[in-house]
Each structure stands twice: as structure tokens, then as C-alpha cells.
């Protein structure tokens, strides 16, 4: 009898990735919601290096880091592969997954914290990064082709988290006009039943962003931007 537990947070894109993968594979699991400001002894025991969610516990053995967990899940449960079988296609998927994680995520989130000229600069830089993804989607519904794959799962923050907060702040980094393929991909993505059951309600997401560990000054800055955006509507 398999025992699968996931230490995560209902509003975290990182633990959401793991939930999507487990759902795609039809794996039953217990979800243990962690409070980032009060981490459980088990979390600290299972991920002593990073002390972060998500951590997958499979038959008592922990695996940490969402991209590592995703590959593990794909190797253990063979239904609905997340990665292509062909080594070259697999290498491409891993390349784009890393690109999304290491280049896109920071470039996009940076735009939440800048104003005026700096915002224009950050928006342009984010645009340069997104352009490659826009090109990669040509002729495809998802990065994985007809169905969701590794890159789509890793890019979850782009489809939902980023766009939700972008809208609340009145920003225009990733729009239907400037990135039509990415926008269409995002719309298809968040409407997938395998995915949207794991997305937190928008107002809840905005209420808890940014996480306190990012610093009170950022929390305050974000609140003031939200208020300014709401007033501008």
C-alpha cells in the first residue's frame, strides 16, 4: 500500500505543481498544509537544507524541490507521462522548465516592485524573456503539445499567480495584445479541470501576497500599490 503525503501550502505555486502532477497520475495523497511562519518539526526534519515546501513523502522517504519531485513522480507513476520519451525532446522540456523557473519567475515578479522608469525597464526585460516562450508555443496548445507536460506544470505561476497579481496592480507586462499565444495558453491552462481545482481563490491570493518572509517593507509597498490601482479604476 503506497503512502503519499505532500507538505505544502494551498496558495503556493510550488506545492500546486506537485498536486497537478499527482492528479494527472491518479495518485492519492494526504495534503499537509504548512504555515510558513511556523514550520512544523516534520518539515524541518524532511527538508533540513532548504526548510521549505513542497516536500513529498513517499512511503516515509522525503523528496524536496518541486522540479526534482516532478521528475520523481514521473518516474515512479507511469500513467500520463509528464516528460517526453524521446531523449532530445526530454532535454528540450527540461531546458524550458529550467528557463521558466530561473529566468521567467524572477523577471516577472520583479515588475511588482518597481515604478516609473524602473518599471518600464523591468517590463521590457520581462518581455525579452517571455518572447522566447511565446515563440516556443507556436502551433501548440500547451508547451507539452496537446496535453500538459513538465513545462506547463512548472509555468503555473505565470498562468495564474502572476496574472492575478498583475491585474490587481493594474500592470501590463503579460497581456493578450503583447503575448497572444501565452495569453491563450494561460486561459486554456487555468480552465483545465486537472489544474483549476488546485488554484486558490483570487482574492485570497491577493490577501496573502507577498508572504511575510519577503519583508514588511515589501508587504507595505504592495498594499500601497494595490490601493493606488484600485483608486485608478
Amino acid at each position, binding site marked *: 500500500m503506497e503512502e503519499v503525503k505532500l507538505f505544502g501550502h494551498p496558495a503556493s505555486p510550488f506545492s500546486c505543481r506537485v498536486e497537478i502532477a499527482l492528479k494527472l497520475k491518479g495518485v492519492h495523497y494526504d495534503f499537509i498544509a504548512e504555515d510558513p511562519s511556523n514550520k512544523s518539526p516534520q518539515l524541518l526534519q524532511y527538508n533540513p537544507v532548504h526548510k521549505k515546501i513542497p516536500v513529498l513523502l513517499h512511503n516515509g*522517504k522525503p523528496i524536496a524541490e518541486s*522540479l526534482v519531485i516532478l521528475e*520523481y513522480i514521473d518516474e515512479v507513476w507511469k500513467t500520463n507521462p509528464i516528460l517526453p520519451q524521446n531523449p*532530445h525532446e526530454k*532535454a528540450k522540456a*527540461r531546458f524550458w522548465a529550467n528557463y521558466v523557473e530561473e529566468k521567467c519567475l524572477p523577471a516577472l515578479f520583479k515588475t511588482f516592485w518597481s515604478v516609473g522608469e524602473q518599471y518600464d525597464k523591468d517590463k521590457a526585460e520581462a518581455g525579452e524573456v517571455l518572447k522566447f516562450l511565446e515563440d516556443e508555443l507556436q502551433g501548440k496548445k500547451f508547451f507539452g503539445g496537446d496535453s500538459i507536460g513538465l513545462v506547463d506544470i512548472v509555468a503555473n505561476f505565470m498562468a495564474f499567480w502572476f496574472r492575478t497579481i498583475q491585474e490587481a496592480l493594474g500592470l501590463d507586462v503579460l497581456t493578450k495584445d503583447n503575448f497572444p499565444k501565452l495569453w491563450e495558453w494561460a486561459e486554456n491552462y487555468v480552465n483545465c479541470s486537472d489544474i483549476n481545482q488546485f488554484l486558490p481563490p483570487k482574492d485570497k491570493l491577493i490577501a496573502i501576497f507577498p508572504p511575510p518572509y519577503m519583508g514588511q517593507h515589501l508587504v507595505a509597498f504592495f498594499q500601497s500599490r494595490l490601493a493606488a490601482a484600485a483608486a485608478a479604476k
Partner: protein
Amino acid sequence: MATKPVKLLGFWDSPYVNRVQFALNLKSIDHEFIEENILSKSELLLRSNPVQKKIPVLIHGDEPICESLNIVQYIDEVWTDGPSILPSHPRDRAMSRFWAAYIDEKWLPLLWEVYEAKEEDSRTTLLEKVREGLVLLEAAFVKCSKGKAFFGGDSIGYLDIALGGCLGWLKGIEKLASVKLLDETKTPALLGWAETFCSNEAAKNVVPEPEKLNKCLKEFQAQAAAATK
């Protein structure tokens, strides 16, 4: 598929390129090494890796594969005749990938920061962080190797390659800053591993010599600084 020609775009002073070289050697893969000048990138590099414009790039037939750890996994998956690089059990594979990610995200960048550090204070702080990381990696080694010579057990594996690629810069820094980073008290197992790794056939003509490396990196830094003025 494994019979198509193989080219590696890179430069000998890069830990990322070294990793690919280890993997190619382990699998006895004939290949052409095309030396790239990072400050004046070739058309071939820009065409093969238009997104990141970085080395290493493996070109197999006419298909490019980018990112060192990606390339190593690709090599392991295509050339199945030679010794396996990744462990066979998914849990061990996950462990290898976890620590390789730790090295690339948290630890290896520190080594370049040491080379770039202008002040003694910042260098000292960085060296302390490097040592802290090595203590974690020592524990990982003891766990993964289970008393054998390599992270991969009896033979070189994925994590050996990931960390082995860093040995050039690590030894270079030890020479540059006159410090010991791998030492008998805090990291005895890794110290032994480094020696065994560097004398292995797959690695011995790849890991750069500290003096030659430091001279090359110093020249690179000077050229890079001149280019931005």
C-alpha cells in the same frame, strides 16, 4: 542515434563544460571540441543556443542540447552501452538531482563571486559560505556513497560529475586565496573523493590546473572589464 557526430562547444576553464567532458569520457564518446571565446561568441554558438547564448552546448547530429546537467542526462539516456551515470532507483535519482540543484543554485555561484570579490572582507565571508556548503556536501557524500569511492558508488555518477566540474575553480580559489577549503577535519571524505575523482580516467585531463586556470580567469576578467568601458 548514438552514431551521429558529436560536437561540444565550450571552454576548458568552465565547470559546466568540464561536466560534459567527464560524461563524454565516461561513455567513450568520440567528439569534436570547439573552443569558444565567451567575449566574442561564434555564429554557431548563437545559432545553437539563441536563448541563453552560453556554453556548454552539445550538438548531436544537428540537434543542440544546452545546459550542462541537461546535457549529462541526455548523454546518459542516448548512450546506454557505457556505464550508467544516473542511479537506477527513482529515489536515488531524486537525491542526485536534489544535490546537483543545490550545487548550481546555492553553492557554485559563490565560487565565481570569490573570483569577482574586490575586498578582503567580502572574500572572507564568501569563503565561509563555501565551507558551510562543503560541510553539507560532505554529509551528502557519506550518505550517497555508502562507503564507496564515489557519490555514484563504485563508479562515477551524476553527482560526482556535478560536483567534480567545480573542482577546477575550487582548487583555483585555494591557490589564489592561500586557503584550504576541502580539509581533513571538516570534509575528510570529500577530500579523499576529490583526489580519487581527479585521478580517474574520465577526469584527469579535464580538471584544469589551478595556476593555469587562475591566469586564464584573470585575463578574462580584465578583458570583460575593458569590454564594458
